[in-house]
């Protein structure tokens, strides 16, 4: 088992690395796991598309009603899928107590939060882009306010889900009923962000004659500021014994 000639090559002086460098390595690690398995993205897409299809079947062929509620169903699809995504991102950390491995490396817990949250955000953002053409086809919507505005709303909305979602996924990951606990903790907290995302998306899709979009975006930005700050500050308390 031992090859003594290999000994020379492993000597180096471990150096502490910065917070953002650590976060980038955690992000890279999650990306690599996702790339190797593709388990999460495939499941997310299937689940979210199925949700949109089911909503459209449940409402029936009333095109006006579908168009009117399209933004709501888009965000419910993203929200439900986010539970899968967030749960899976911490399942890999509990499998062999890998989170302990990160802590003892040592990695600053705040870097783990940043790496995980920044990793979860683009995953949901990418999902929302997969859902857009389906929304256009099934719900007969047009993007009256322009694609750029919709991209902004989707980015802010997805970020608003991932910051508190990452904290609660970490809390739930150690619980026996983790699959139930995560939505139970997360959904009530996300009501303001969900409301703002749906309203802002509806204004972009259907037009904004009263210029209300700015205030909803402001609410989303404020929600993001608070929960990214809270996550960054509180995450060490969540993951330490």
């Amino acid at each position: 088992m031992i090859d003594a000639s290999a000994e020379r090559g492993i000597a180096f002086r471990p150096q502490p690395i910065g917070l953002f460098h650590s976060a980038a390595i955690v992000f890279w690690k999650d990306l690599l796991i996702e790339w190797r398995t593709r388990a999460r993205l495939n499941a997310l897409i299937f689940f979210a598309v199925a949700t949109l299809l089911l909503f459209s079947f449940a409402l029936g062929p009333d095109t006006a009603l579908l168009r009117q509620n399209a933004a709501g169903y888009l965000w419910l699809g993203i929200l439900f899928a986010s539970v899968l995504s967030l749960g899976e991102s911490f399942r890999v950390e509990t499998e062999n107590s890998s989170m302990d491995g990160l802590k003892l490396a040592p990695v600053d817990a705040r870097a783990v939060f940043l790496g995980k949250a920044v990793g979860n955000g683009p995953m949901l953002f990418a999902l929302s882009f997969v859902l857009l053409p389906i929304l256009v086809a099934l719900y007969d919507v047009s993007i009256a306010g322009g694609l750029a505005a919709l991209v902004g709303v989707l980015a802010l909305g997805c970020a608003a889900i991932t910051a508190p979602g990452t904290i609660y996924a970490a809390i739930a990951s150690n619980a026996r009923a983790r699959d139930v606990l995560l939505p139970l903790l997360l959904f009530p907290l996300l009501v303001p962000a969900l409301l703002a995302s749906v309203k802002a998306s509806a204004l972009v899709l259907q037009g904004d004659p009263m210029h209300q979009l700015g205030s909803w975006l402001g609410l989303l930005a404020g929600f993001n500021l608070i929960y990214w700050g809270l996550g960054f500050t509180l995450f060490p308390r969540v993951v330490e014994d």
Partner: protein
Amino acid sequence: MMQTEPKALALDIRDVSKRYGPRWALARLSYSLPLGTSLLLTGHNGSGKSTLLRIIATSSSPTAGGLSVLGLDAREQREDVRRQTALLSHSSFLYEDLTAEQNLLLLARLLGAAHARDIVSGLLTKVGLATRADHAVRTFSAGMRKRLAIARVLLKQPRLVLLDEPFGELDPAGIAAMEKIIGEMQDKGTTVILATHLIEQGRALTQRRLHLREGRAVAA
């Protein structure tokens, strides 16, 4: 009259207790270990060996009491303690979907290694996994996982190494190799704390013994 300098302590445990629900895993345990001295930790299942190792590694906090590790306060200087210790635990800390090489590269980069690939390649050769470097950990046997977990420990180049059942899941060749690795670490001045049920093997590798029963130190 010449006075000899007291030897620096690798470990100074002061009245440490740990409770899980109604059960005390450790009960007012006190113990000191000089730097460079190896310790054999023995006791039946549930006697508190793993809990003690986790507390020393700062993976878990004591319910009461305090401890210094390598002269550092385990609560106040937790990051510094973690930087200088390594734990081989029942959990491998490995990512199942990453390859052996990627698992080690992750830790090497977190440790700020400049030539991470060369270092990792050397380590994989050392633990006999060079030919399986690009295989996912999910496909590994228990013994191979243990070897990779040992490589993780070696990568950290710790001053204090905590080994929880290091011989478990290893074949006879693996056990002999593990003994050699422990010997090499001791030769470099690393303090080794070894918890095992293989008492004779443990005794041959260590200078001191601490026997635990229901979370308390007792005469072996």
